[in-house]
């Protein structure tokens, strides 16, 4: 009897009965009753964003409040849907709302509709719930920003796109949501465009996400060619019958897409720069929701990965590598948001790792996604609260002793800190430990990565916590007067703080039962007892935390020391992620464009340059070009005619 199960059975909550449920028999039924109103989920934030962005300055006064109401309204709709879904029996829960037929060409059909099942449902609640809280928080955080209305318009746009992504009933519609969240993310990262760093970061996120999107579009094309359908039901029904090589290609393409959106290796570099956006954005988009879209995509595509073991293994490797990679970066950075960004990368790595385990891991990937959505949003909001009171100071070397002046923030942040480390009974203790156990039951190395990652996580989070809240104050008095944030910001932090504490405990056990009909679930088999496993991982956590506390409790110098280990130097430079991008993507790209320009200007298209030079108005030169080129054009037509003749004669022969 392990610790988790003893807790859940103490609660009397469900035991796992739905193992090995076949997801394919679980077809969605047409929406009726409450479910026929699920379009409201999308309509409310769309309305909010449309009014705020189209009405312009006229909406300045009431816009932000309106946007908050729209998201909270969507949350209420989500709750209604959730309870209606609870009332159904497990196999009748997925519902489909057909809207219209987008394309019917030949034998290809692309209906447009929403699909709500247990998996989408938890996302809907997470997105609208955390989204609503962050909207409220932003009322305080963005209070003095002149473009507040636009900010809320973009936030609503993001919520709409993200909801579309998780409620789409086909890959095609999912793609629309996928691009929509990318757009919203781009707009919000670059929201403070006047800062060059923000504009550059937005551009970088945009470009790197396109690389991932190519993967998704290739996957969709392959599905269309292979199955003649891009709806979830159509693809999953046909998936077991397709050849393994095709499925592997589709799987790899989906993995590429997930890497782009979820900042996994090798497309991870944009996430740290994306921290240039306003902090509520980092909390909502770059921690709680959008970056987890890749996890959703992989879990949703379970039947595809079932038929493509190689692709599934690749998912696992990417997840394991990124979770270590991100954690190392997090351990060396001095900016509070940079540490959290590295941490996000690493935690999403955990989810991807779990998703790469197959039915053993799917539910835990989603479980960790939910708890992470809450505690990471909480941590970011805490960081935002600190920045808000310290004139956007990010450098932790200038913090210290903030516990005294911002006690409330200290409390909520500490609950997030305990939660992410996985100290029992806080949330990641349930979700992350399940991933470590499941990994060990499938692959030793994956499990080891997850275990070591837990130790590093504990190290960097304790380092952050210690440098920020304890020790002596290193902030200078000149323009930094840390003070507690306004109530409108503290309220969401309090809610998320409580959620960080309790979510894992409340969801453990129940989440498996809830998700198993959609994702399937198998119990993993560990070589050692669960209790032993939990003790080992707890040891890693405590040791990691203790090292950090001992090292940093006496404070740190304000300028970062230069004589440090090679790993620290590398980690400060984000493990050379940018250098890699530069060498692999940017230079060849530049070389390619340059050589194209060269070919164009020297060989093919001298004409073009000639003509555009003539635009200046040199009539004599123009006449010379004119006679010369009409003749050469005619010659080329003649050559074309000869080519055609030759081609026709060759065919005849």
């Amino acid at each position, binding site marked *: 009897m392990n610790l988790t199960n003893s807790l859940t059975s103490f609660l009397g909550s469900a035991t796992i009965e739905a193992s090995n449920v076949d997801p394919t028999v679980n077809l969605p039924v047409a929406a009726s009753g409450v479910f026929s109103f699920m379009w409201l989920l999308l309509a409310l934030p769309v309305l909010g964003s449309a009014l705020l962005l189209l009405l312009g300055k006229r909406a300045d006064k009431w816009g932000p409040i309106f946007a908050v109401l729209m998201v909270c309204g969507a949350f209420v709709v989500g709750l209604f849907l959730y309870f209606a879904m609870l009332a159904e029996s497990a196999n009748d829960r997925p519902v489909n709302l057909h809207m219209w037929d987008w*394309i019917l060409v*030949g034998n290809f059909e692309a209906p447009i509709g929403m699909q709500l099942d247990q998996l989408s449902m938890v996302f809907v609640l997470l997105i609208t719930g955390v989204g609503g809280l962050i909207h409220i928080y932003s009322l305080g955080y963005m209070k003095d920003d002149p473009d507040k209305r636009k900010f809320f318009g973009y936030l609503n746009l993001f919520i709409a796109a993200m909801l579309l992504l998780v409620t789409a009933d086909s890959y095609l519609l999912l793609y*629309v949501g996928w691009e929509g969240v990318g757009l919203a993310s781009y707009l919000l990262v670059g929201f403070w465009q006047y800062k060059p760093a923000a504009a550059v970061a937005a551009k970088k996120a945009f470009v790197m996400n396109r690389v991932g999107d190519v993967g998704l579009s290739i996957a969709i094309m392959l599905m269309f060619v292979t199955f003649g359908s891009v709806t979830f039901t159509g693809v999953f029904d046909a998936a077991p019958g397709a050849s393994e090589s095709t499925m592997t290609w589709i799987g790899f393409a989906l993995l590429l897409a997930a890497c782009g959106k979820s900042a996994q290796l090798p497309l991870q570099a944009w996430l740290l720069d994306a921290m240039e956006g306003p902090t509520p954005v980092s909390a909502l988009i770059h921690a709680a929701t959008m970056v987890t879209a890749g996890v959703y995509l992989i879990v949703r595509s379970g039947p595809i990965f079932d038929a493509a073991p190689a692709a599934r293994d690749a998912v696992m490797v990417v997840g394991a590598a990124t979770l270590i990679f991100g954690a190392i970066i997090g351990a060396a950075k001095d900016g509070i948001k940079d540490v959290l960004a590295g941490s996000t990368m690493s935690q999403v790595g955990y989810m991807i790792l779990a998703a790469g385990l197959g039915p053993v891991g799917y539910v835990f990937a989603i479980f960790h996604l939910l708890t992470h959505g809450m505690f990471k949003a909480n941590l970011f909001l805490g960081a935002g609260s600190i920045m808000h009171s310290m004139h956007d100071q990010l450098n932790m070397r200038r913090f210290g002793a903030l516990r005294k002046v911002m006690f409330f923030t200290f409390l909520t942040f500490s609950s997030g800190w305990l939660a992410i480390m996985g100290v029992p009974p806080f949330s990641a203790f349930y979700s992350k430990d399940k991933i470590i156990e499941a990994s060990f039951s499938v692959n030793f190395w994956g499990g080891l990565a997850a275990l070591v990652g837990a130790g590093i996580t504990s190290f960097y989070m304790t380092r952050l916590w210690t440098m920020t809240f304890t020790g002596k104050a290193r902030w200078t008095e000149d323009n930094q007067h840390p003070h507690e944030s306004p109530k409108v910001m503290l309220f969401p932090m309090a809610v998320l703080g409580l959620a960080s504490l309790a979510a894992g405990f409340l969801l453990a056990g129940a989440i498996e039962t809830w998700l198993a009909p959609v994702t399937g679930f198998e119990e993993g088999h560990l070589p050692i007892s669960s209790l032993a496993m939990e003790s080992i991982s707890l040891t890693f956590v405590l040791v990691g935390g203790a090292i950090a506390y001992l090292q940093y409790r006496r404070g740190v110098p304000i300028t970062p020391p230069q004589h440090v280990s090679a790993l620290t130097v590398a980690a400060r430079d984000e493990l050379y992620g940018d250098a890699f991008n530069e060498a692999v993507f940017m230079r060849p790209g530049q070389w390619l464009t340059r050589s194209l320009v060269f070919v*164009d200007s020297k060989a093919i298209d001298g004409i073009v340059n000639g003509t555009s030079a003539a635009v200046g108005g040199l009539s004599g030169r123009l006449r010379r070009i004119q006679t010369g080129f009409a003749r050469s054009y005619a010659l080329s037509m003649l050559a074309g005619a000869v*080519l055609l*003749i030759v081609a026709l004669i060759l065919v005849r022969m």
Partner: protein
Amino acid sequence: MTELLTQGLGEVTRWELPDLQYRYLLPLFVLFGMAVVSVLVEAFVPRAARRTVQLFLVFGTLIAAFILVAGLSGIRSLAGGGSIAVDGPALFLQGTILVLAIMAALLIAERDADPAGDAFAARANALPGSEDEREFTRRGWLTTEVWPLFLFSVTGMLIFVSGTDLLILFVGLEVMSLPLYLMAGIARRRRLLSQEAAMKYFLLGAFSSGFFIYGAAMLYGFAGTVDLGGISDAITNQAGPNGLLLAGVVLLSVGLLFKVAAVPFHQWAPDVYQGSPTPITSFMASCVKVAAFGALLRIMYVALGGLRWDWVPAFWIIAILTMLVGTVLALTQTDIKRMLAYSSIAHAGFLLIAVIATSEAGLAAAMFYLLAYGVSTIGAFGVVTLVRDSTGEATHLSSWAGLGKRSPWVAGTFAVFLLSFAGIPLTGGFIGKFAVFEAGYASGAGWLIVVAVILSATAAFFYGRVIVIMFFTDPQEDGPTVVVPSAFTAIAIASGLAMTVVLGVFPQPFLDLAEKASIFVR
């Protein structure tokens, strides 16, 4: 009289007047008649009132013609003594041409965008830079002879997509083209470039017409008829010498491929698109493309369908070359009009896939594609007319930098058109490409589709580049301004935008319409 003649000549075969079926030809007659009236307006109405009268006349005529065409829907018949088809493809394409012509006419009618007046020279016959020119400009004269030319050209296009014998097709081709040569040369600004464009277009157009008519003669030599159905029968029956047939097919194709700007018959397009007044460019890039593809499809499907295995390989080469050259050269253009010209060349390549498919699905796909491409094209050129500096339109790409920051609406609209050209989902361009690729794939041209998909992904890059320039770079210090146009241009751009989005989001009714209209009468 006739009786007297026949009596006098004895029992000669009695020549019967063909039944012209005027009702079916009414749209053509209305357009042609009103074009003639429009000439008379130029001659007799006082200068001050001319523009107003012409505008009422042109828009009235186009709308009336559209209603008449729409009224014929569902009819499948031959009219005009068997030389004009009234069938689904003809009516669909005529309707498309008329809609696009109305949008282009709105751009032509604009005169608020340029402080000097509309897009056309005060007097086309004044030498550029001469004393006369300055005088005419000072008087503020406006050129209205563009209107009768415009109506004649539209008439030619309607004939070109419905003609069922090679001579009528040739008449349509010339009635369409001759006014275009003139219209290309009457730009108000950069007149030398405009006149150069007109001259080139005329010379090369005449050259290509020569190919066309020579090809028609060869085919007549082979089949003994110029009727498309008759040629088809002759091919089935192996009626004549093969040499004449093959030569005829090639020469005829060259004439048509020139008009659609397929490689290597494309070189006129960038020069002419760049030099012509932008509203005329929009008319050429959309309506001419529709008309030429209409004729190409009809000839290839109806007359030469039986010879498919002979010309399809050659068309593969042409299609790949066209997509490749259009895409690759568009990548490095620095002038927005030239870039759109190369883009239109690339689109011709994609459309050739539908010609190669030679199936009902291919025809339907091509018709939808033409509609989606046409509305976006006119919208895009409409936006080009709005971005101006002191010398007129600022077409150099560098001056579009940062447009999205200064005029987010205009830049956003242009971005939608570019996305449609690139074939991004939720735009008409995507559905069009999708339908064409689907039809091509179904007809067995799998590798061609692979090439097309790769090239269309590459093409997305240069459209994306313009979006990046507009939204991601900083505006120039003394960059161009976006002028506020009158309702004419605004309506044209707005309807282009609306149709691009509607065709992308609710394409089904239009796809159904194209599908229903996808059988040629013969």
